[in-house]
């Protein structure tokens, strides 16, 4: 298909097809426009999530009531958790950067099913709207925590149904994105781009897509059952009718543990692109990184029970889950070692994305290593459901996925918008953000060890100092965040024009103009024997 059409003379940002204005976006099946639409809708939700997080920290500034009632606090962490997990970090990198970059990285003009891709976005928005409906209508905000544990989730008098249904629809959106990516990666790689030459980001999307496909339906049906339980009282998880609440937890975590790897794998993929680019050096242990990606995806499916050590499982199950939890930590360790080795004898060009990448490695290590404390039975019993867990997952979810998201944002920004951001402001923002992050979450480890349970609206006096420090950190963090985001928004509008390949990278997306034309390539590229995504010779 070499009909070099007019469409390819302008970038995807300017192209006007059948429709104009807003319609040309929300009816577009172009993977890049869909990616941007995800970015913007997530940006909105993310701001809400951050504000809720800040509100919680404000409440925890002092014991007793500070700014909100207990009822509101419970709703706040529920909505905060649901937004952050189901709307930001689970779809996050795949839906935004997977859509924006993956087809170009494999030399394709679009994903395999563009219409389905657009439909996934609509489902995403529908899910968001449903959750918002849960907030705005009915009496009582949803207040179960993002885990919807039975039997509380069908006992509480609050407006759970729309929220549960929203989470279900969001899951469906995520499944369809995964399906689309799998077919695209299988069928649409350009000639010569063998599996053994795929960029690592694409590999992680591939692994992620499988988890999305195989894990999400389980939580889907579980949520449907909770809804049916509320409406009809069918008695699947209700102990009064013979059900077993622990079975609910099994099913929930069969999805939600793999989901944490849905969050982290693409983040690791993005880091695996950034480090070789700025080191100007082949990635160390390409095959080992792929193997560890697949190992995480696979073994990650089998360790869900480590969230339930205290729930009354059998000793056999506890033994097994603890053992496998430790095994699944090894592939992550392999990745860290490979990233650091890639820097060895490189020629490192320290730019903003690279700063983000090393900050990522640092906080990811803290998050991951604290995961080991949680994976071990004796210590988990002690700190389970305390602030220690909250610290663990903020370090690894927000420190891992969030930092990688910003790393990817600063890395692909010139490609996406065709403009460059102000590097000084970007670095300043990062520094403040990082300091705030450490101040916000480190004290929570200590609070957990002192025994402060999580989801606590009020606390005893001995937990006060840790909470003050932590709240203080949240203000620093947000200052940094505002600097970063304002800088990005301003630069997307009026930054200096970016070159085609500002970082000297070797993957395919840097061989097309910035921003890319509508159909990406005039002619589908071909890879020959000696080329590779990290061939910096």
């Amino acid at each position: 298909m070499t009909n070099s059409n007019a469409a390819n003379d302008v970038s995807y940002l300017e192209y006007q097809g059948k429709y104009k204005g807003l319609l040309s976006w929300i009816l577009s099946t172009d993977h890049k426009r869909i990616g941007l639409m995800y970015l913007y809708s997530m940006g909105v939700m993310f701001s809400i999530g951050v504000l809720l997080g800040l509100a919680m920290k404000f409440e925890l500034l002092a014991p007793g009531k500070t700014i909100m009632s207990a009822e509101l606090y419970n709703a706040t962490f529920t909505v905060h958790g649901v937004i952050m997990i189901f709307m930001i970090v689970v779809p996050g990198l795949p839906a935004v950067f997977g859509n924006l970059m993956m087809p170009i990285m494999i030399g394709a003009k679009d994903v395999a099913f563009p219409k389905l891709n657009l439909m996934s976005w609509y489902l995403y928005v529908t899910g968001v709207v449903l959750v918002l409906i849960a907030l705005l209508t009915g009496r009582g905000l949803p207040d179960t925590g993002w885990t919807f544990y039975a039997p509380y989730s069908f006992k509480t008098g609050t407006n759970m149904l729309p929220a549960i249904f929203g989470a279900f629809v969001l899951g469906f959106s995520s499944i369809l994105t995964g399906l689309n990516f799998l077919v695209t990666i299988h069928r649409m790689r350009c000639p010569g781009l063998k599996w053994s030459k795929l960029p690592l980001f694409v590999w992680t999307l591939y692994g992620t897509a499988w988890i999305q496909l195989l894990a999400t339906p389980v939580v889907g049906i579980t949520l449907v059952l909770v809804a049916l339980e509320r409406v009809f009282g069918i008695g699947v998880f209700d102990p009064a009718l013979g059900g077993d609440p622990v079975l609910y937890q099994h099913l929930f975590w069969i999805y939600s543990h793999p989901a944490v790897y849905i969050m982290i794998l693409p983040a690791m993929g993005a880091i695996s692109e950034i480090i070789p680019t700025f080191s100007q050096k082949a990635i160390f242990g390409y095959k080992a990184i792929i193997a560890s990606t697949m190992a995480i995806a696979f073994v990650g499916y089998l360790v869900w029970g480590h969230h339930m050590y205290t729930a009354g499982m059998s000793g056999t199950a506890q033994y097994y889950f603890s053992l496998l939890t430790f095994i699944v930590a090894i592939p992550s360790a392999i990745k860290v070692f490979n990233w650091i080795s890639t820097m060895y004898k490189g020629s490192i060009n320290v730019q903003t994305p690279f700063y983000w990448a090393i900050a990522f490695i640092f906080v990811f290590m803290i998050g991951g290593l604290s995961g080991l404390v949680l994976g071990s039975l004796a210590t988990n019993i002690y700190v389970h459901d305390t602030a220690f867990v909250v610290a663990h997952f903020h370090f690894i979810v927000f420190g891992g996925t969030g930092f990688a998201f910003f790393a990817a944002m600063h890395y692909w920004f010139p490609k996406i918008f065709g403009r460059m951001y102000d590097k000084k402001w970007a670095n300043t923002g990062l520094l403040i953000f990082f300091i705030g992050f450490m101040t916000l979450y480190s004290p929570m480890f200590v609070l957990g060890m002192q025994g402060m349970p999580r989801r606590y609206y009020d606390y005893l006096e001995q937990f006060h100092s840790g909470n003050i420090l932590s709240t203080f950190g949240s203000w620093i963090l947000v200052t940094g965040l505002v600097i970063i985001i304002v800088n990005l928004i301003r630069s997307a509008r009026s930054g200096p024009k970016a070159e085609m390949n500002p970082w000297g990278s070797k993957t395919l997306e840097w061989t097309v103009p910035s921003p890319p034309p509508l159909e990406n390539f005039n002619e589908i590229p071909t890879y020959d024997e000696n080329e590779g995504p990290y061939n910096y010779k």
Partner: protein
Amino acid sequence: MYSSEITQASNFVKGVDSTFVLILGIAFFFLIALTVVMLYFVFRYNKKRNPKPTQIEGSVSLEIVWTVIPFILTMVMFYFGWAGYKPMRNAPKDAMEVTVYGRMWNFSFEYGNGMRTDTLYLPKDKPVKLNLKALDVIHSLYIPAFRVKQDMVPGMKNNTMWFKPQREGEFELFCAEYCGLQHSYMYTSVVVMPDSAFNNWYSDTAQVVASANVESPAVSGRRIMQNIGCFACHSTDGSKLVGPSFKGIWGHTQLVQTGREEREIIVDEDYIRKSVYDPNADIADGFNKGLMLSYEGQLSDEDVNLIIEYLKTLK
């Protein structure tokens, strides 16, 4: 760390804390070592210092090394974690048994002699086995100083935990599983006392229960309500918590929902009795159904009479 202040408050502290220290040690070693190496590389192989990169594709022997070493370390951590946890599973046969009821949002403890308290009193150095009974949703009994935690799952068989307190004093006991509105107020304490003091207390209070009528009925009523936790949901000062306030409740007219129909009733003995034994039959206007559970089998007729006497006094 917290543990240093109250070392060995229970027989499990040692196993848990040594595992903690082991894992933290390994973690800090890797965190610091890797961070230092990473920063050194960034500095040493900076573009300015090292303009030409050396291409290295990988190294099989290194990959094996850094797979095997973490594997061994994780297995060590796993082993200590399991070894520290295993004793928590098997309570000794001679352990003293206490039944714990968890409900929204308080704990109550029932001893062998039928006595009920809202605080857990225990003798030092005697193993104790707690039989956990959750009455509504999942709660979790957590005593940080003892390093123990166990979810209380409604309907679950053999829901137990055990430990041996080894230090006198008062320790916090929290509910660690989110259980609704007042989850963060669902805490009480464990009081560990020397054997003799415990025995005194144990027989002493039993006497008070037996001769409860020595106190004025209203005072006993209040104590019963305190112990069983009515005040988690009902205030006596007119403020609205989960349930209606008890202030001025006696004899006042109340709008209630019975089935589908609304009607007005006057709060009398029968109504209060019914509210305690079958709370969902009449729902006070403006409150949710299903939150208050029946106290059938937990409060005797006698107890309810005392409660009524107390409620009468709340003008």
